[in-house]
């Protein structure tokens, strides 16, 4: 790369690294909720993207309400709205499990169809309630703009925010799954449902809360993404492909796999995109995935559940 000083190259290298990490955190946050539901319950939730949209619309609603009624609260509402997005999407997930999913556990392919139908219903509801146009919440000033680390390096603040949220959520999920007694019961149910029931675990309740947790995390992801892009009735469909890609590539039942997979896909994508054009970068990333999955059909980290 002639014509550029070492300083410039260093700065670009640093910012490019951050672009990759930023994409990684986006992919991971999207995939976490799905990985919990798919990995722990074996339910393929096609409506995952719509639960994300639910979180994004919650943020939009809170933003407009705050702007109208308590403008002084504007700088702080965003943190509050992430919690609200988690609750709203989680509640929707809880209801969806209660009304729809729990009747279909023995028919995994039917859950695929049922959740796809659910996604269509949710899309149409968003369209009826919020209109076809895409909306964006008004973001507080501290979330916008860049942090100038040096003269040449600008780090996007929204990227850092999403990264921070992802780290927090991932740690929280790991704590819940591997350190809490609730997580122990979830894992027991995954490994052997009948036995878990026999030792007094209410497996139905476990299912419902696991599903709600997955949807709630999707809602948080949706709230976080309002800092990056806009929200429309069909926004969810933009994310669902990438989300499944991450979860399947990582190995369905492994949270570590999901992290590793999100990291490698994000880095490959953003490095390739720097050297070739955006569309071709996507083609190469997907091709590589297909080839790897041909040799390792279980994904990066195969699940160790007894069959």
């Amino acid at each position, binding site marked *: 790369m002639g014509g550029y000083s070492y300083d410039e190259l260093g700065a670009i290298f640093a910012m490019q690294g951050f672009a990759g990490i930023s994409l990684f955190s986006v992919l991971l946050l999207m995939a976490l909720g799905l990985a919990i539901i798919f990995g722990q319950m074996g339910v393929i939730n096609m409506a995952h993207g719509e639960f994300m949209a639910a979180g994004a619309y919650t943020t939009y609603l809170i933003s407009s309400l705050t702007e109208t009624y308590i403008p002084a609260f504007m700088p702080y509402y965003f943190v509050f709205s992430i919690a609200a997005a988690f609750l709203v999407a989680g509640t929707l997930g809880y209801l969806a499990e209660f009304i729809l999913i729990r009747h279909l556990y023995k028919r995994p392919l039917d859950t695929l169809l049922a959740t796809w139908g659910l996604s269509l219903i949710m899309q149409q509801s968003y369209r009826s309630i919020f209109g076809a146009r895409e909306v964006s919440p008004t973001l507080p000033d501290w979330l916008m703009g860049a942090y100038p680390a040096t003269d040449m390096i600008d780090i996007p603040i929204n990227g850092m925010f999403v990264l921070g949220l992802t780290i927090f959520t991932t740690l929280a999920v790991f704590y819940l799954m591997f350190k809490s007694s609730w997580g122990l019961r979830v894992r027991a149910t995954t490994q052997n449902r009948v036995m878990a029931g026999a030792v007094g675990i209410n497996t139905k309740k476990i299912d419902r809360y696991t599903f709600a947790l997955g949807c709630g995390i999707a809602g948080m992801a949706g709230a976080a993404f309002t800092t990056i892009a806009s929200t429309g009735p069909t926004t969810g469909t933009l994310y669902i492909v990438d989300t499944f890609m991450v979860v399947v590539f990582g190995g369905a039942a492994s949270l570590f796999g999901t992290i590793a997979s999100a990291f490698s896909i994000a880095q490959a994508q953003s490095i390739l995109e720097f050297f070739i054009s955006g*569309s071709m970068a996507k083609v190469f990333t997907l091709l590589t995935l297909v080839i790897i999955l041909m040799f390792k059909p279980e994904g990066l980290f195969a699940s160790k559940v007894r069959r």
Partner: protein
Amino acid sequence: MSDKSDNQRSWGRRKVVRALGALPLGIILASQLSWAAPATTTGQAVTEDTVTVGILHSLTGTMAISETGAQEAEKLAIKQINESGGILGRQIKIIQEDGASDWPTFAEKSRKLLVNDKVAAVFGCWTSASRKAALPVFEKENGLLYYPTFYEGLEQSKNVIYTGQEATQQILDGLNWVAKEKGAKTFYLIGSDYIWPRTSMKIARKHIENVLGGKVVGEEYKPLGDTQFGSVINKIRLKKPDVIYAAVVGGSNVAWFKQLKAAGINSKKQTLLTISVTEDEVLGIGGENLEGFYSIMKYFQSQDNANNVAFVKAFKEMWGDDSVIGDVTQAAYLGPWLWKAAVEKAGTFDVDAVVKASEEGDIELTTAPEGYVKLHPNHHLWSKARVGMWKKDGQAEVVYTSELLEPDPFPEGYQ
């Protein structure tokens, strides 16, 4: 006696069955009869007091953000025409279809409107990809499409009237302006990955390299709907272009400008000229993310003339105070009025006659919100190019207005 009554009963039963069977047919026939009554055309949905037209835009999907305004403007124009007595004494009825941001759907719905509904004209399509998909249907069924979007040119169909500006009317004047005003020499081209951005960039590159003597330092296309621009923004930073020349569309547009701002690239440090942002898009992007960047269009809502003031007022009355009007929305509004002028000149709704009347080069609208437009025999409009600088409130300040430009869909040296 008993024989007879038996006979009667069985006949009766058959008659009942027959009558039941014929019932839906009768309803269909009755409704068809009223349509089929020939007025001034053959086979079109024209009655003694109504004429049916189609509106075909995306109400759903990634393009809905842009296309909603266009169909609203078309409905406003049709409503105003109806209130002023209609066309040839007939009130206009609308059949609306959703293209759903999916190009094959546009072709399918066009066929439905032309073959099943037999509409006299269609106002619709937005992206070039959707127009290219619908075009063969309009040519085969001899329909008439009023297409509202600024587009890449290199097309002229007998069955389409283009009410937006073609590439030379938009791209060339804007590039000339930025080269002269900002002394720009190096350009970075970025667009969404489909036919309009790619063809527009091809024309822009030829103009930059051959006419302006400048240099294109990068050219980039992102998949439609993509929301990750981090790597592209870094590339732009490395190349340090005088001007970023952008044609990113739909939902991606919002992500693109939000991330530009988040990366610290704003109008104080960087000149950005875009051919894909109108007031409609600003609504989603947010004025604060665009402040100081430039758009080249032929119409801005802030234009100060009597036609436009009346148009903006009527539009807000019909669609609410919050609604905004972008370039394509205004161009879409021209469609029904241009059709009305051509039909009244031809004295018939027949497509061949309307096209012939349109091709004589004397159909003009002095009431157009953008000022004055005239239909060129090549099916495009004479119009002016304008450069607008975006302000925080989502409106643009017009900083440059060109002469009335002749449409030239097949420019020499740009193909």
